[in-house]
């Protein structure tokens, strides 16, 4: 029994079911991120937790209280919206204490709470301004302040950083993380940005087409994605997924794959259970950072395999250089050290860390190994 329990929850509009049997149990103090592309149902789920949308079936409970049919204001939650939703006609101070006022909190207490939160967020000097006079980052802080003042059981964030510019976004991300570390309040956070999901969360639910594709810690999601969708959605650049044939060599399963010149090369798997797939096609998933120049290979790995191929495009990104090559008929990205000697059009021998490789069933696209 978690603190926030989502049990068997579905959502339908008329005959169309847009959210299918979601089960998530969130412990107190957890930071759950719902991530997925637009239209995946993550905002709908958040709105259902908030009580802004009805629940078609199943239950949502907070602190063992079933919340179905309970008015949003009675759930003891607070929400930060994508557009911040600051009331344009009220000052910052009025915005932040509106909720307390609505809940009948006496003025002195409201003032005290406002003072504390304003100090925490360093927005004391903004309290008398109207939202229209604030910068994006300031609005964002005010929106968070408004949520904090309420001291809710659960914080809900609906893509709160998507309207900020890149640098501010990173700063605010850190700030939210700090805030969570300090306050230890349960947070449900919706985003389409997988980096936000990875950096902020204690657990991630990856959603797609109304299903929770995978629920797990960031590391679980990243290293052992449940299916091809999760694998390609999480991580940037995305995980390389290419069709390979399993062949047994020396009693060990290998992935047979054609390089650009058509020559077949063999990459040894670390997972022996793939022997069952001998002779059949599977999908091989390798993250870019697992294909490197030999010097950059992970020294702790027990299974580094060489791979010769012609270099396509090189993209220096400062810290690393990304190389695109053609492998198994797909474009595959490799991540080299910045000073690796790679030249477009030349042949090169890459080092593939097959310990980190993931295999998927080509039909169901579910993970079959590890």
């Amino acid at each position, binding site marked *: 029994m978690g603190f926030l329990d989502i049990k068997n929850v579905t959502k339908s509009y008329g005959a169309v079911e847009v959210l299918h049997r979601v089960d998530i149990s969130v412990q107190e103090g957890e930071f759950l991120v719902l991530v997925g592309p637009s239209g995946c149902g993550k905002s709908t789920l958040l709105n259902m937790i908030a009580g802004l949308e009805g629940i078609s079936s199943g239950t949502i409970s907070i602190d063992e209280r079933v919340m179905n049919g309970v008015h*949003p*204001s009675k759930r003891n939650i607070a929400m930060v919206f994508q557009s911040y*939703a600051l009331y344009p006609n009220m000052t910052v101070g009025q915005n932040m204490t509106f909720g307390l006022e*609505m809940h009948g909190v006496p003025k002195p207490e409201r003032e005290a709470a406002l003072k504390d939160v304003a100090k925490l967020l360093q927005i004391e000097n903004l309290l008398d301004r109207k939202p229209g006079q604030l910068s994006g980052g300031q609005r964002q802080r005010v929106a968070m302040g*408004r949520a904090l003042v309420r001291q809710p059981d659960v914080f809900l964030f609906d893509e709160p950083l998507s309207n900020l510019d890149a640098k501010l976004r990173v700063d605010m991300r850190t700030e939210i993380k700090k805030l969570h570390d300090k306050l230890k309040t349960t947070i449900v956070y919706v985003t389409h940005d997988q980096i936000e999901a990875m950096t902020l969360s204690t657990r991630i639910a990856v959603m797609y087409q109304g299903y929770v594709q995978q629920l797990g810690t960031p590391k679980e999601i990243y290293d052992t994605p449940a299916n091809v969708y999760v694998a390609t959605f999480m991580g940037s650049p995305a995980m390389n997924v290419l069709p390979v044939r399993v062949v047994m060599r020396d009693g060990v399963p290998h992935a047979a794959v054609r390089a650009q010149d058509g020559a077949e090369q063999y990459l040894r798997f670390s997972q022996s259970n793939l022997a069952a797939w001998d002779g059949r096609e599977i999908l091989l998933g390798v993250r870019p950072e697992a294909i490197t120049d030999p010097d950059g290979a992970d020294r702790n790995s027990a299974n580094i395999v060489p791979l010769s191929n012609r270099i396509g495009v090189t993209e220096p990104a400062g810290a690393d250089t990304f190389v695109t090559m053609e492998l198994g008929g797909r474009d595959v990205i490799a991540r080299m050290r910045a000073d690796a000697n790679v030249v477009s059009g030349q042949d090169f021998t890459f080092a593939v860390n097959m310990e980190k490789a993931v295999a998927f069933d080509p039909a169901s696209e579910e993970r079959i190994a590890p």
Partner: protein
Amino acid sequence: MAVADQDTAVRTGLVTRVFIYGILLVFAAFYLLPLFVMLTNSLKPLPEITGGNMMALPDTWTFEPWRQAWSSAQIGVEPTGLKPYFMNSILMVVPAVAISTMIGALNGYVLTKWSFRGDKIIFGLLLFSCFIPFQIVLIPMASVLGKLGMAGSIPGLVLVHVVYGIGFSTLYYRNYYAVFPTELVRAAMIDGAGFFRIFWRILLPVSGPITVVCVIWQFTNIWNDFLFGASFGGQTQPMTVALNNLVQSSTGVKEYNVHFAGAILAALPTLLVYIVAGRYFVRGLMAGSVKG
């Protein structure tokens, strides 16, 4: 001053600008012509009107027609002028505008922020109701008012105007609120504000521009109405009916100067509303009502 900052102007030479000002002034003259005719002739004694040029300024300036129209012209059997009817109009217009605007605002709020199945159809039906010709509702309306016991009274007139004003006021507010971020409503819900509190504290404070448009529209329509006033006004006939009585004497001397003075008097409140609130009008229209 978002309006002034907008810049759809193109760069133009001096000749073009003179030309532009020329056209604008010609049209200004066109729009002012009837008012000019009414005003100058209301300040002339009667013989000067019947004998002279419509456009000419008065030789003898007189305010007598205005005084007569206001307080001593024959409207019914008694020479009361338009004065007593002015109050009838005010008593009718103020509540009718206030109520229809308020209902329109609430309707717009419900239709955009609390949408439910079938709300579009309801809005469509409401909108279509703006376009009903009033002549056809006269008889059935009379019968309904009679049954309600409200025939020939100001509450009856207010009811009629509210009923046929709701369509437009709902249209204005709906279009305005449609572009108002729904997230604000949701935030307020989570903050614990109820249906009316959200409306009162969150939406209404920012509804100024559209309220100006709606009030102007309703005020002029209701103030200028003659048909309902004559049919359902009873003892409390509005000013337009009185003006009509003044102007439309079937057999008798036509005192045109008094007629014109009366006409301007009857139009004064609406003119005032346009001049005072007119500059917010474009802004209000901008803020929603011309959106497809």
